[in-house]
């Protein structure tokens, strides 16, 4: 009895700690007052202003575009890595391959961002491309560090699953490619979707790498938000937070739905 009381208290306090700041943010987004901290009354004023703020809307569209594209590329390449690591025996310089596909997970974003920026500048000096940085360079950087996250999900999924199904299909006359497209990929599809959702969210949320590799016409949403709240508070950002948190949490739930499937 006593221990179950401790248990519920710990869990309750933990969840309270995790959700309290999010609730505070949502609460203040309905504040009429321009001064964020002084409560004046319930209002949807800042939501209205948010939807009329062209800078934020434009940044939002750019971010979604970059996130969708980089998640798609990162998923394709990540699936290839996950598959290679589990199913293909002969990989030249395999430990180098593992190094390349796992280090982006642990490397601080700041170092990654700096290295990408210096790479693009050097590349431009050598071959004259990319002449300026922008959406393309952010896209390339995001693909690079999202690959590792997808690869790890796919690798875990493939390690788990029963190879006999693939072998049975081969015995029945399917060739290698057909097994992949008709058997393997459909079975791991939920994990592929989960990987895409994770990559999408990471790209959408990234500030540091995007700040390094951005250029004219490529202010992503986190860059705009950061410039607004670095030194103070912004009622429009409060409204944006409430919407974005809600949307991202839904994406997170989908991720769990798809990723849970593979456990069974």
């Amino acid at each position, binding site marked *: 009895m006593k221990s179950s009381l401790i248990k519920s208290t*710990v*869990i309750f306090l*933990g*969840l309270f*700690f*995790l959700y309290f*700041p*999010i609730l*505070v*943010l949502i609460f203040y987004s309905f504040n009429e007052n321009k001064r*964020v*901290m002084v409560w004046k009354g319930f209002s949807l004023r800042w939501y209205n202003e948010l939807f009329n703020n062209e800078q934020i809307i434009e940044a939002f569209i750019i971010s979604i575009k970059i996130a969708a594209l980089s998640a798609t590329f990162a998923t394709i*390449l990540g699936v*290839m*890595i996950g*598959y*290679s690591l589990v199913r*293909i025996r*002969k990989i030249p310089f395999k430990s180098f*391959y593992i*190094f*390349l*596909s796992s*280090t*982006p997970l*642990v*490397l*601080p*974003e*700041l*170092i990654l961002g*700096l*290295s*990408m920026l*210096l*790479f693009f500048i050097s590349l431009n*000096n050598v071959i004259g491309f990319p002449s300026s940085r922008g959406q393309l360079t952010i896209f*390339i*950087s995001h*693909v*690079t560090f999202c*690959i590792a996250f997808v690869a790890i999900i796919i690798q875990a999924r493939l390690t788990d699953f029963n190879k006999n199904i693939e072998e049975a299909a081969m015995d029945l006359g399917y060739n*290698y*490619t057909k097994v992949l497209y008709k058997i393997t990929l459909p079975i791991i599809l939920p994990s592929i979707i989960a990987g895409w959702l994770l990559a999408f969210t990471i790209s*959408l*949320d990234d*500030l*540091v790498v995007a700040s390094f590799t951005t250029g004219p016409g490529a202010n992503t949403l986190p860059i705009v*938000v*950061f410039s607004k*709240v*670095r030194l103070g*508070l912004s009622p429009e950002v*409060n409204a944006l*937070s409430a919407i*974005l948190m809600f949307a*991202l*949490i839904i994406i*997170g*739930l989908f991720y769990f739905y798809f990723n849970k499937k593979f456990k069974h």
Partner: protein
Amino acid sequence: MKNKLFEKYFVFSPYFWLVLFFFIPLAIIFKISISVSEWGMPPYQDIFLFDNGFKINTTFENYVYIFSDYYYIGSFVNSLILALISTFFCLLIGFPLAFYIATSNIRLRNILLVLVVIPFWSSFLLRVYAWKIILQNNGILNVILLNLGITSEPLQLLYNQYAVIMGIVYTYLPLMILPLYGYLNKFDLNLIEASKDLGLNRIKTFFKVILPLSVPGIVAGSLLVFIPVVGEFIIPEMLGGSDRLYYGKILWEEFFVNRNWPGASALAFSGIIILVLPIVIFQILYSRWSEKNEI
């Protein structure tokens, strides 16, 4: 024959991408870190000179410059201490939470796990911003403290190292809980009962049974928190003050404000060597060790 071609395609497409866009950029950081700096654009000299015959033009001055200046070393140390403290608090909060979730019944367990991780999906930047609102002088925490009579005037909670630690513990907590839960979930709860039956009290059971079995989870969770926190830039920038300088801020300013590219590259490359390399080596050794001991 066809299989081979297909395998090659699968192995080499990501290989090519990562060498080009990950490995070469790292090599370029190293190259610029050993270049001689000069005024101009780009602000460094080439490392290979061909004007009077071939000459290699490198220097370790940038490293000497960094490691002989307390401004840089001090911020490095500040970041390591910050990461250590934050990791400790994440563990302190995360361990009981992970343990009690792992010992809940299976339906509740899945719900709780999703509840713990879901905040991690909402925007990182906005979760840090939320603490900015909470810790304001007229923010919710100060209002509570004033009303409870704990303090008579609003405390300056924001823009100091404690706010930074708070923000980090909050945002990185799920990264600690997940691997902890992963390992705690695996072990047999009957062991706890058995140890109680054998006469060990709660505290002894914790130190002799639960803790040793969760070491791999603790290591994995701590690494997931520790490494990114050392390079953390956003949280100190939003919640921190001028009382402490951290590695991320120094690196950022060296590049964008001082325009010292070789210096910034040397800082970045030192970061990789000091931080990432030992951990990669440690992980390789650790996975071998645990394979041997079948954990």
